[in-house]
C-alpha cells in the first residue's frame, strides 16, 4: 500500500439526508483518519440538504452539527434564500453526493441535481437509480463534456462491487452477460417461503414488520427495482441506450410454497433473476436456479455472475442494501475519483 504524504481537501455536499445520506456522513466520520493516511484525502462536508432545509458551512460542518442533524435534535435550517439547487451551484465544493429518492418516471429531483452539479463543475457520486435509468446517455455526455466524473456504483447491488469490477478489474474482457439477484427484499421473501413453507402474503408482511420490505413493496416485488438496475448495467457495461421500457418484467407475487417445494424436489430454488446480455436481451423473471449454483444465495444477499470471454465466469456476492453498505460504495467512488 502506498502511503500518501500531502493531504488534499475534498469538499462534498450531500443532497438528500435520509438513510444513505446519513450513512455517508457516518462512514466519513468513522474513516476520517484512514482516508487521510491511506489516500491522502481530507473529506469535508460543506453542505447538506433535504426537504426540511439546508445546512452550509464553507469550512466544513462540524461532526457535532452533523450528528445532531442525524439524530434529529438539530434541524436543517429552512432558508428562504437557498434551495438544494442553489447549494450545489453556489457553495464551492468538488463532489456532490446525490442520495435523494429514486424516481423512475422522470428521474427528479436527482436529475436536476446532477445536471446542476456537472454544469457548475462538480463531480457527482450517486446511489440514486432514477436519473441514470431515465437519462443515462445524456448525463454521461454532459459529464464528459465538462470533464467531470459521474460515479454510481451504489445504484446496483449496494455494497457489492459490480460496475467498477467490470470496468476496471475485468478491463480487456468481453462481457457476454450478467445474471443475478439484484433485489434483497425479493430474495428474503423467496428464501423464507422456501425454508418455512409459508405463503407469499405472510412472508411479505413479516418482511415489512422487520423493515426489509417497504410499506408499499410494489417496486421490489414486481421486479421494477431489479429492472432499473439492469438498465443501468445495460447502459454502463454493455454500452446500450436502454430504458425501463425495454425490460421484460415478471415479479414474485404469484410464487406459491407448493412451487418452491416442487422446485426443491427437482434440485432447484426459485429466485427473481435479472439478466442482461450483449445481444440486448433484458429480462427480470422468477427462474429455477440449481441448488449448487453460485447464484443460490439466501436471505437479503445480492449476487451476480458475470460471463466473460477471457476470465470465464466471475460471481460476486454482497449486501445489496443498507445505509452503511450503500455509503461504502459511495465512499469508494469518491476516493476513486482522486486515485
Amino acid at each position, binding site marked *: 500500500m502506498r502511503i500518501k504524504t500531502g493531504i488534499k481537501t475534498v469538499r462534498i455536499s450531500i443532497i438528500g439526508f435520509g438513510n444513505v445520506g446519513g450513512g455517508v456522513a457516518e462512514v466519513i466520520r468513522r474513516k476520517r483518519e484512514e482516508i487521510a493516511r491511506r489516500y491522502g484525502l481530507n473529506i469535508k462536508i460543506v453542505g447538506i440538504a433535504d426537504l426540511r432545509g439546508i445546512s452550509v458551512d464553507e469550512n466544513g460542518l462540524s461532526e457535532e452539527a452533523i450528528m445532531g442533524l442525524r439524530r434529529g435534535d438539530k434541524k436543517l435550517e429552512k432558508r428562504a434564500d437557498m434551495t438544494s439547487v442553489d447549494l450545489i451551484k453556489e457553495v464551492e465544493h468538488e463532489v456532490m453526493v446525490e442520495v435523494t429518492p429514486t424516481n423512475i418516471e422522470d428521474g427528479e429531483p436527482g436529475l436536476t441535481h446532477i445536471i446542476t452539479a456537472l454544469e457548475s463543475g462538480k463531480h457527482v457520486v450517486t446511489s440514486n437509480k432514477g436519473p441514470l435509468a431515465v437519462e443515462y446517455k445524456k448525463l454521461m455526455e454532459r459529464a464528459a463534456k465538462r470533464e467531470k466524473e459521474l460515479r454510481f456504483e451504489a445504484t446496483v447491488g449496494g455494497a457489492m462491487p459490480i460496475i467498477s469490477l467490470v470496468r476496471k478489474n475485468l478491463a480487456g474482457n468481453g462481457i457476454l452477460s450478467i445474471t443475478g439477484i439484484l433485489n434483497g427484499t425479493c430474495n428474503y421473501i423467496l428464501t423464507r417461503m422456501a425454508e418455512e413453507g409459508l405463503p407469499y402474503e405472510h412472508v411479505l408482511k413479516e418482511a415489512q414488520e422487520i423493515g426489509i420490505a417497504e410499506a408499499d413493496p410494489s417496486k421490489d416485488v414486481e421486479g421494477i427495482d431489479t429492472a432499473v438496475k439492469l438498465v443501468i448495467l445495460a447502459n454502463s457495461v454493455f454500452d446500450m441506450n436502454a430504458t425501463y421500457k425495454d425490460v421484460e418484467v415478471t415479479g414474485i407475487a404469484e410464487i406459491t410454497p407448493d*412451487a418452491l417445494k416442487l*422446485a426443491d*424436489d427437482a434440485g*432447484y430454488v426459485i429466485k427473481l433473476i435479472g439478466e442482461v446480455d450483449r445481444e440486448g436481451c433484458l429480462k427480470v423473471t422468477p*427462474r*429455477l*436456479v440449481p441448488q449448487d449454483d453460485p447464484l443460490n444465495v439466501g436471505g437479503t444477499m445480492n449476487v451476480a455472475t458475470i460471463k466473460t470471454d477471457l476470465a470465464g465466469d466471475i460471481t460476486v456476492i454482497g449486501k445489496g442494501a443498507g445505509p452503511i453498505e450503500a455509503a461504502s460504495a459511495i465512499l469508494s467512488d469518491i476516493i476513486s475519483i482522486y486515485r
Partner: protein
Amino acid sequence: MEISMDIELQDIPGQLVLALEPVSDFGGNILSVLHQRDKKTPSGRIPVQLVFELEEKRLDRVVERLKERGVKVVRIGKERLKESMVVLLIGHIVHSDVRDTIDSIDRTGFAEVVGLSVSMPGVAKKSSASVTLSAIGKKELEEALQILKRTVNKKGILIITPI
C-alpha cells in the same frame, strides 16, 4: 430399439422417399420425420431428422444402404430423448386442461412430457406443477420449451424455467 438419425439429402425431388425406404425394407417402423426444407447445410443439402424403431442388429445394413443411395448420415443416436429439463407452472393448471398442454409437446414427435407432478391447494386456488420435458436434442428441447411457453401464456399460467 428406438433410433434417431440425422441425415442430409440432396435438394432434388424424391430424395426423402429414397431415404425412408431402406428403413422400412429392413422392418423398421418410422416414428417421426423432421424435414427442414427451409434450412440448408453450407453444402446446399437439406437436413432431416428421422426417428424409427428397428432391431439393433439391422442398423448397419440400413446405414450402408442409405450411403449407397447418396444419403449422408450425419449422426446416429440410440437413446432417443437425450436432453431434458424441468420447468414449473403456476396458475389454474387443471382447469385450463393439462392434457392439451402436454399434447402440444407430445405432438411434436421430437419431444415429450416425461414427468408431471401437480400440487393443488384447493379449488379456486392456483395450483403449481413441475413438468419434465425431454427431447432428442438441445435445439429440440428449446423448441419444445417455446411451444410450452406459448401454450401456457395463452392460458395465463406463469412458467418458471431454469437459468
